[in-house]
């Protein structure tokens, strides 16, 4: 079991991820937040240049409030590695954040146990 990150309040589950450009091999390792509210995994915009990514498509997203304006984001194909499991050619959004969000596109391919009471979690490949 891994521990929630208590520097965020309330504490949240973060997992080590490696995002790789499948074309060039450039990669970045960072902790990403497990976010079941996100329909798709998102990476920080600042990584686009670092990973030499080229957009493949564009998607529209909306936030948690109706009044938040819909936003258009470019999407990119990357390889995402979590716990030695590689998700090849995962389509991700680029957003204004410092760390990745692991969305349901990835989360729905693994088994996750969230033990909020003990602030611990486990990512399993069923």
């Amino acid at each position, binding site marked *: 079991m891994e521990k929630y990150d208590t520097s965020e*309040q309330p504490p949240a589950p973060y997992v080590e991820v490696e995002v790789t450009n499948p*074309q*060039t*091999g*450039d990669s970045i390792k960072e902790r990403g937040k497990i*976010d079941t*509210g*996100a*329909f*798709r995994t*998102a990476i920080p915009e600042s990584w*686009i*240049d670092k990973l*030499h990514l*080229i*957009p*493949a*498509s*564009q*998607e*529209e*997203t*909306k*936030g*948690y*409030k109706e009044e938040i304006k*819909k936003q258009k984001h*470019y999407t990119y*194909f990357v390889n995402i590695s979590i716990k030695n499991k590689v998700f*090849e*050619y995962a*389509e991700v*959004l680029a*957003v204004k954040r410092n760390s990745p*969000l692991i*969305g349901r596109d990835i989360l729905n391919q693994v088994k996750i146990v969230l033990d909020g009471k003990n602030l611990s979690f486990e990512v399993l490949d069923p």
Partner: protein
Amino acid sequence: MNMPSDVNSPSGLPADHFEAGNASPNGKIFLPIQYKGARLFGWKIPITPGPTGLLPDVHPGAPSKLSRLPIFKSETSNISELFIKERDAFLKMKDELLGHETYQGKFVAIYEGNIVDFAENKKELAKRVYRKFGYIPIYIGKVEKEQVVGEMSSPERG
């Protein structure tokens, strides 16, 4: 042509460690590429000949050999402009495509304003077109009446 010193090769060595056209330790060849006015830098990745000994077929509308090289480093603004052109071409032809059973509900890949490939699976289509044309701006869009809006619903503290 000068190569910028801030370009790092996949082997971790700076690009200017290599001369254009010389093989890097990992067997790839670094080449500067001029692509539609954009300054791009790519690694020439060996293409494996098919059983006939010939290189894989390329769509008639495909770019020249040089521009098919996978892009390694780019000037983002130029990439963005090229990508937007492909996206706009898709949006222009979308209504027409909706009338064709072949494309309805499928993903199409747009390059140089034309459909170069299509498939039901976006990931497989992306893999295929990048393999065929190189890592260059290609727009992949779904032929559907209304685009689905995805929810990124988690509020966070500022």
